[in-house]
């Protein structure tokens, strides 16, 4: 397996793609999000699995996003997501609200190759009232009078996340964050940034295999050191609360966001090019 560059990975994402991304507590590839901002991606449809965080707000602020499907967008302790909120107000993005287990369920349906899966709850919520793509049927296994929600399978074009490491075969290790495996299984292509590539085959190692996502699902790997930052990466590095708080302050205004991007998104590329 030969890793590609982060910029090549971003270039392989077409405008308009449906991209599934884990939130800040579950190995987002912030590095890939920044590379997508640099490449000037447009019209992306982002799926938060099951909620959205820093990377989503950044992509929205940079004008890369047409639509967000998610159960919440938040910067955690740093508060509401400022660019998401501004774009929603300005009407420049479409927001499709869901609820966490519904997003997991739609991806699991795609993972299993079935057209739908049921979920309890949700009935009577305005989420359902605003999701014409969701259906309530009468549970065929009850005697009647037991309404239950059916959710359609959702197959993202791209699964994007950050793993600890890849091996020689292109397998990637995400440890206990197994929702990344579900995203990879459900999606047409998985693009994975990693801290490092190591020799060997994780699937041959009984200690590493359980946290490994097979290369079968992985289209490309790019090395991006500290690629989840400011999100935490298991026991490799912690959440950078100061970085997010700084972003949250800056991104309150268009100008502040632009200045933040100049420093934190574009400067690194410029430095690399010089």
């Amino acid at each position, binding site marked *: 397996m030969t890793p590609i560059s982060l910029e090549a990975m971003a270039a392989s994402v077409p405008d308009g793609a449906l991209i599934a991304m884990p939130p800040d507590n579950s190995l987002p590839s912030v590095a890939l999000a920044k590379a997508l901002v640099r490449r000037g991606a447009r019209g992306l449809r982002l799926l938060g699995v099951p909620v959205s965080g820093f990377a989503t707000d950044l992509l929205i602020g940079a004008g890369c996003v047409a639509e967000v499907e998610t159960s919440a967008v938040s910067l955690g302790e740093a508060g509401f997501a400022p660019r998401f909120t501004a774009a*929603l107000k300005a009407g420049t993005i479409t927001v499709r609200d869901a609820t*966490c287990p519904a997003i997991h369920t739609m991806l699991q349906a795609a993972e299993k190759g079935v057209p739908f899966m049921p979920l309890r*709850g949700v*009935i*009577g*919520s305005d*989420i359902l009232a*605003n999701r014409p793509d969701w259906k309530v049927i009468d549970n065929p296994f009850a005697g009647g009078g037991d*309404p239950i929600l059916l959710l359609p399978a959702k197959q993202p074009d791209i699964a994007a996340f950050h793993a600890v490491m890849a091996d020689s075969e292109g397998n990637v290790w995400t440890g206990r964050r197994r929702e990344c495996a579900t995203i990879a299984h459900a999606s047409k292509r998985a693009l994975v940034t990693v801290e490092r590539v190591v020799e060997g085959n994780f699937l041959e190692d009984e200690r590493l295999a359980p946290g490994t996502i097979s290369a079968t699902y992985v289209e490309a790997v790019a090395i991006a050191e500290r690629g989840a930052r400011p999100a935490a990466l298991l026991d490799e590095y912690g959440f950078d609360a100061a970085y997010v708080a700084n972003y949250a302050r800056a991104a309150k205004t268009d100008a502040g966001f632009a200045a933040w991007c100049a420093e934190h998104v574009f400067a690194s590329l410029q430095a690399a090019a010089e």
Partner: protein
Amino acid sequence: MSVLPEERLAVALARLILDPAAPPARHIAVGAASPIPAAACWLVKKQGHPVRLSLLHRRSGNPFTEGTRELFDLTGQGRIDLFFLGGGQIDGQANLNLVGTGAWPGTGVRFPGSFGSAFMYFMTPRTILFREEHSPRVLVERVDNISAPGVSEPGVFRRGTAQALVTGKCVFTFDPTRARFTLAALMPGETVESVRTATGFGFDVAEGVAEAPDPSEAELALLRGPVCDEMVETYPEFCARVFGRKLAA
């Protein structure tokens, strides 16, 4: 000894968790950004009650190995007995709005979103609603948008709903058959009238409603000692502010 409001709220929540009239709370899950409910749960545990706590977003000792899906599966299985929910708006029928005000999807003030509330509120036998801010802006007659309904039509599968609503001013209990809150206890300095003024929805008043008893010395000692020990890694800012505890560098 002066008692901080956060301590008082944690104790009020802990007493609701232990309410002998409610179904048992053997396994409680606590969401992110919920330090006061987390403190209440740890208090119950440190008092020696056998309870399993699943603290989401705890960096070390995250209890799940299937990712964030596992909380919802666990709840679907009926293994989570109690969960905490809040809301940007909460109305008199215990409907929760975590989406936003104005037209869908929150064209007035947008809140972060519904998270798992539309599922958890149905599938957990007990939910304790918690919102520190007690104002007519938050506690409304009718929420603008329903993230999760407080009551459901007959026939809709539902294991439970709100047990109570705890705010900075009072404790309400909830009666799902009547879809109505009852003022059960007051925080210091509050009266039935002051609560009524601050509340956008109508409610009943329990007979002989009075101030919630003060936290005991034992409760405070547990909160400030062993409870804080457990929380300081996950909620350093909260522990510093409320308990005056600093995380070792």
